């Protein structure tokens, strides 16, 4: 039932709005709304009960193992939420003078410093609201850099075919053409193809390392040199930073600009689709172009760095300070991990992934890149099951829901057929991983003996498989009585 269907004319949550209608008779009639909007008319209890029940129809990290590859669904410590939502922080108006927000700004400044250290970059801006906006920031800076050098003929960004969809979409938003680079059989960038593609038209390359194929790009230095020699810059998609935190730094690999997804590596919640935060780190040559605002510190007071100091800035990306509350959560998480905790993240994320990969291989599943180490994630391909049994990755994924596990990422990256991209994260116990393996083994047996169990899955969820074609053809995007 929808909230609108609980509605009853004249009912409302009386405690939540002023008790009377204040006088607005000075506003000319012509400006006023003729018909009230059709919002539900419900009591406070009805609202609480309705949305509590809706929440119970979700899978979440707090309730299920959620091995969604490329998404880093690790535990979101509760302290990060509680402490970021202290009244003093919630009450901060974004345009209030810095003298009234030194505590808040100190947290953001220290987060900037922490991120500089773990990425090996020269400077960090916290303002991008998510990974994709971080990508936009980075590529826009690459463009501003070339423009400032009078180097305006560069019109192409190179993107490996394994890249996330936001990479090519971002390059186009920044006015570039996209040139796709294939992947070799080992899961690395195809160096031959790359050599041919690089030229005077190359503005830069967008790389994810470890890549979305769950392997570390071993020839990264070679790639960096090749691009730099051609006058291009290297963009690092840091969605997979969890795998290398405290082990190797994008700055040391030769990247000029990077984004991090704090809603992955720094454990801020995904919230059913955001908010995230996508801070961007830069090398020295891109520092003048960083977006505003940035938090500065003169040893005495924290302050905003503005256009006066950064006249070449690409500008603003949002009205205020990006997703400040997410940044606060990431700061708290970073302080709790501390120096030692950082590399343990990579250690145990990698241990869990390699353990799961070993057990699933042993159970007869096909790994997409056998012989390679898993990073924090790895890919199983169900190509064989699809061919022999007509069972797809989708069928497997839906059946996992019946076993009370969230499905891994399916059909991404696009170049591995019938793939499951599996990322367990460091916060899961061995018992949880073992239970997942048992479920996978059972489902594999079902695929052979009673395939309809998979084909018709899920059986235990609030709904069965949904008619997506109908959803797109007979568009029903809003409710009406």
């Amino acid at each position, binding site marked *: 039932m929808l909230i609108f269907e609980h509605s009853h004319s004249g009912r409302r949550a009386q405690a939540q*709005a*002023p008790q009377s209608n204040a006088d607005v008779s000075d506003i000319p009639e012509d400006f006023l709304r003729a018909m009230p909007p059709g919002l539900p008319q419900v009591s406070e209890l009805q*609202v609480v009960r309705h949305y509590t029940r809706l929440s119970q129809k979700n899978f979440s990290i707090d309730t299920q193992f959620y091995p969604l590859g490329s998404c880093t669904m690790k535990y979101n410590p509760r*302290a990060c939420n509680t402490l970021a939502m202290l*009244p003093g922080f919630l009450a901060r108006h974004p345009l209030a003078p810095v003298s009234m*927000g030194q505590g808040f700004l100190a947290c953001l400044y220290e987060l900037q410093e922490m991120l500089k250290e773990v990425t090996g970059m020269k400077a960090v801006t916290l303002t991008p609201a998510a990974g994709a906006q971080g990508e936009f920031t980075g590529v826009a800076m690459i463009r501003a850099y070339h423009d400032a050098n009078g180097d305006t003929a560069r019109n192409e960004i190179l993107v490996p075919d394994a890249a996330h969809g936001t990479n090519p979409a971002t390059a186009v*938003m920044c006015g570039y053409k996209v040139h796709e680079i294939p992947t070799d059989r080992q899961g690395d960038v195809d160096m031959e193809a790359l050599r041919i593609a690089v030229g005077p038209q190359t503005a830069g390359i967008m790389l994810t390392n470890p890549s979305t194929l769950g392997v570390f790009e071993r020839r990264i230095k070679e790639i960096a040199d090749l691009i730099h020699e051609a006058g291009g810059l290297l963009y690092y998609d840091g969605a997979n930073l969890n795998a290398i935190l405290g082990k190797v730094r994008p700055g040391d690999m030769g990247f000029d600009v990077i984004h991090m997804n704090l809603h992955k590596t720094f454990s801020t919640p995904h919230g059913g689709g955001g908010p995230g935060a996508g801070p961007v780190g830069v090398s020295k040559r891109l520092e003048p172009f960083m977006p505003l605002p940035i938090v500065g510190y003169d040893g005495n007071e924290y302050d905003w760095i503005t256009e006066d100091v950064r006249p070449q800035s690409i500008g603003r990306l949002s*009205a205020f300070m990006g997703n400040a509350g997410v940044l606060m959560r990431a700061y708290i998480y970073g302080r709790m991990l*501390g120096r030692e905790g950082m590399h343990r993240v990579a250690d145990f994320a990698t241990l869990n992934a390699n353990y799961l990969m070993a057990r699933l291989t042993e159970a007869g599943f096909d790994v997409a890149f056998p012989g390679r180490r898993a990073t924090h994630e790895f890919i199983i391909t169900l190509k064989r099951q699809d061919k022999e049994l007509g069972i797809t990755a989708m069928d497997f994924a839906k059946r996992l829901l019946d076993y009370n596990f969230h499905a891994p990422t399916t059909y991404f990256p696009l170049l591995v057929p019938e793939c499951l991209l599996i990322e367990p994260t460091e916060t899961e116990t061995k018992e949880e991983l073992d239970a997942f393996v048992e479920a996978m083994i059972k489902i594999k047996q079902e695929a052979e003996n009673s395939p309809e169990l998979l084909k018709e899955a899920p059986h235990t969820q609030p709904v069965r498989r949904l*008619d997506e074609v109908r959803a797109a053809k007979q568009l029903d995007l809003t409710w009406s009585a």
Partner: protein
Amino acid sequence: MPFIPHSESDIRKMLATIGVDNIEALFDEIPANLRMGKLSGVPEGLIEQDIARLMMERAEADGRPLCFMGAGSYDHHIPAAVWEITTRGEFYSAYTPYQAEASQGTLQLIYEFQTMMAQLTGLDVSNASLYDGASGLAEAILMAVRANRKSKSHRILMPVTVHPDYRRTANTIVKNQNIELLEVPYSPEGGHILTDSLKAYEGEDIAALVIQHPNFFGILEDVDLLTDWAHQQGALVIAVANPIAMALLKPPGAWGESGADIACGEGQPLGVPMMGGGPYFGFMCCKKDYVRQMPGRIVGRTLDRDGRVGYTLTLQAREQHIRRSKATSNICTNQGLLVTAATIHMALLGAEGLKRVAQACHANTRKLVAALTASDCVETIFNRPYFHEAALRISLPLDNVLRPLHAQNILPGYALAKDYPELGDALLVCATELRSDADIDTFAGHLGRVIEKQTAAGRPVKPKMA
């Protein structure tokens, strides 16, 4: 090891299964010369009680001032139930609802949100959010350029009455696609768009006109006139709207003969705390003809294989994970949790509650203006009706007035000089439903004393204009 559950024996067994001696061996594909040293710049880890103490000290130090500032972020009442439910783990720690069957809670909630936003704006459809109001305006401009098939130009009319930081943000995001934002001036008397200045564009190819209403000065624009003018020129109309104001004022879908085409804006007033500037959420609604040009996630209602009603992400062929370089936008993660809060907030307030809040904001701001302009040194700048913000001119150097008020833990408003130097010592003030008569008296009283001190100290006072 914070948040890592492995015991020594777990580690031993796991390594044996993998067939390596130690964890370090798992990193053997990373070239040794790239490996980093110690993270000396990161402090030692803290246990929860220690980080809690630090954060409480810092939050305390920031002081919770009495807020008369608006300018795009507003201090409204948020029902306790909103964040109690929003931070339930099932909402808080879920991913984007790609696995529809295991995400019906989030999906149904977004469908309800889309319905509420369409109702509020008076338009047909809504998406599931963008990052914030300003970047949402940038997306609306990109969308209008795609959607306006009659226009070949990449020219957008951008009145100076639109929030200055929205204009800056839009420029950052659209300039690389050769889109031009043409400034339209405002009336010095009314503080609204100078319709005469639009005449220069008559007969020209313009993709869209942006109208913020109430505008940055809080002033009500001639939305009917402007909308009809734009449509006669073949331009689309992009409304930048305040969700609380829409409960009281004519919504974008009802502007002029045929309504605005796209409405976007900042969702923060709907249950989202000010929080230093974010996370907020941008909303976007449009006429149904343009839905395939919309950026961001959209949820649709459909049936499952047993004929039961269910909800799923739809029209995904617009999005980056399917269309890659041909997507309508690069947006992926959006502002889901804030949408959750806003939906619960709207359900709790309802149309009548939101309208009462809007009425109270307007009435309180009028009281505030009356109380402040009782001083000979303070006057209103514009003569048109306003919603819940007003621009005031102070006949003293503004900095000298603001600083002593800050010292009293009062946030007196937003200084307009940075963006509108022609207005001189001008302050944009706002009083939401949370400001009591006593709060307003406190502000007016302190301001009066500050002015008295300054004038007594022989500061020049410009005479009040007639």
